[in-house]
């Protein structure tokens, strides 16, 4: 136990003694030494006090920012699960869609959008399916509180919706592209400062009412809470084979994930009111250039 050049026990031996992991022989030797050595006895007592010292540190509280971040991440996972029972997929034959490459949002919102957008673009190169998130602005949630900004978007959307109703073909024709091209092009156009894809703003009168976004970063905070209030719409897609994920509403906008199978084609997604089956908003998915 003791060593010629140092008659004392080592701190490690004392700690092992305390933890009860010494062999019986070593334990006896250490106890013997402790009986005659005040210095080691003192250290032993201090070691014995460490667990209480550590336990005395109050538990940290979960910061609200982290709590909501976790909520968001789980909401994004929920939305990612392809279970959209209220979504009409008649125009989009249901096949097993590829799941989007998984990335979690983190860092500040601004940074996060940009980083994830880039990550999604990179990952999409190896993905066969087209996965796009479609924002349909200004959808009436029936009593959900909306910011004044969302209210403004509502008006634009109403106009766009009536335009769509009259002239669903009025949207700019989009070229068909392969899924890989599609994903890369869209993401390279993504403008985090504007929260959308500049390539879509060239559509006449649509930039206020329709925003395309993609990737997990397209789920801002509050999805989980807002999603409970809104399910009253039917989505149909034309020009693409695939199906929609669950429909969620955020700040007066609807968000649904469109997962396409096979070669991706530019698509038009239209939301119809569940009350009267009138089209209420539309968005285009595809390369708008």
């Amino acid at each position: 136990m003791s060593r010629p050049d140092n008659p004392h026990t080592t701190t490690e031996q004392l700690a092992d003694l305390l933890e009860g992991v010494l062999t019986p022989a070593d334990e006896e030797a250490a106890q013997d030494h402790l009986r005659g050595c005040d210095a080691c006895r003192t250290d032993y007592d201090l070691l014995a006090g460490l667990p209480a010292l550590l336990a005395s540190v109050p538990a940290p509280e979960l910061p609200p920012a982290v709590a909501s971040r976790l909520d968001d991440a789980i909401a994004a996972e929920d939305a990612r699960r392809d279970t959209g029972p209220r979504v009409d997929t008649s125009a989009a034959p249901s096949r097993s869609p590829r799941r989007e490459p998984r990335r979690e949002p983190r860092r500040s919102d601004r940074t996060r959008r940009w980083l994830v957008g880039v990550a999604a673009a990179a990952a999409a190169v190896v993905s066969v399916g087209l996965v796009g998130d479609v924002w349909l602005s200004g959808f009436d949630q029936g009593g959900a509180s909306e910011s004044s900004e969302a209210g403004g978007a509502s008006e634009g959307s109403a106009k766009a919706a009536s335009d769509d109703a009259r002239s669903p073909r009025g949207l700019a024709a989009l070229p068909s592209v392969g899924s890989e091209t599609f994903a890369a092009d869209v993401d390279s156009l993504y403008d985090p400062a504007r929260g959308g894809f500049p390539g879509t703003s060239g559509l006449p009168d649509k930039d206020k009412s329709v925003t395309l976004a993609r990737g997990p970063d397209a789920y801002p905070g509050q999805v989980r809470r807002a999603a409970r209030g809104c399910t009253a719409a039917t989505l149909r897609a034309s020009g693409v084979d695939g199906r929609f994920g669950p429909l969620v509403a955020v700040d007066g906008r609807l968000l649904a994930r469109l997962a396409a199978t096979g070669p991706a084609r530019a698509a038009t997604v239209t939301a119809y009111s569940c009350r009267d089956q009138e089209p209420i908003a539309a968005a285009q998915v595809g390369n708008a250039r």
Partner: protein
Amino acid sequence: MRGEQPDDRTLVQRHVAGDAEAFGWLVARHRDRLWAVALRTLHDPDEAADALQDALVSAFRRAESYRGDAAVTTWLHRIVVNACLDRARRQSVRRTEPLADEPDQAHEHTRRAQIPATTSDAVETLAEQSARRDAVLAALRALPPEQRTALVLVDMEGYSVQEAADLMDCPTGTVKSRCSRGRANLLPLLGAWAPGGHRVGVTEPLSTPGRPTDKEVT
């Protein structure tokens, strides 16, 4: 009146069956404690939040593989602890100053001998509590990740050695050994703060490795 809340296992089953709310309930129930483990293991709030999020997302996706042989809370903690350990190991590779895993130096009769005694231990001020907390956290930072995690679980969070072994996926003997080594490494750093130790005033707690301004975020 609210109905009785479903238990953890029921929530996992509902989640696997497609219930969009179930996992959120589960997380809400356990996240405070999971956060404490993550933050104390990693110290950096951003890293801890990243680790916790990664772990929870992983649990969300892996829920089908939960076999029910351990408590749900153990299962969740295990995923979080492993995510934190992975990150902590990378942290300690980036830094290079943590204490040796197997220190074999004979102990000096600690630093407390060089430190003048305070006038009284009877009353601990708020500032002193805060200084003590900072000293503990900074000292933990200096430990190798495995020792730190073991002490966080056993000494700070109050898990039994058996529970900690389950969470860290290692034998109980390994947990004991890590706790023992960890405490031995902490003694020179924290001995003066332990009951019976002597310390200087709060304006100058023990010098500790790592960044002294780092604090647990509350």
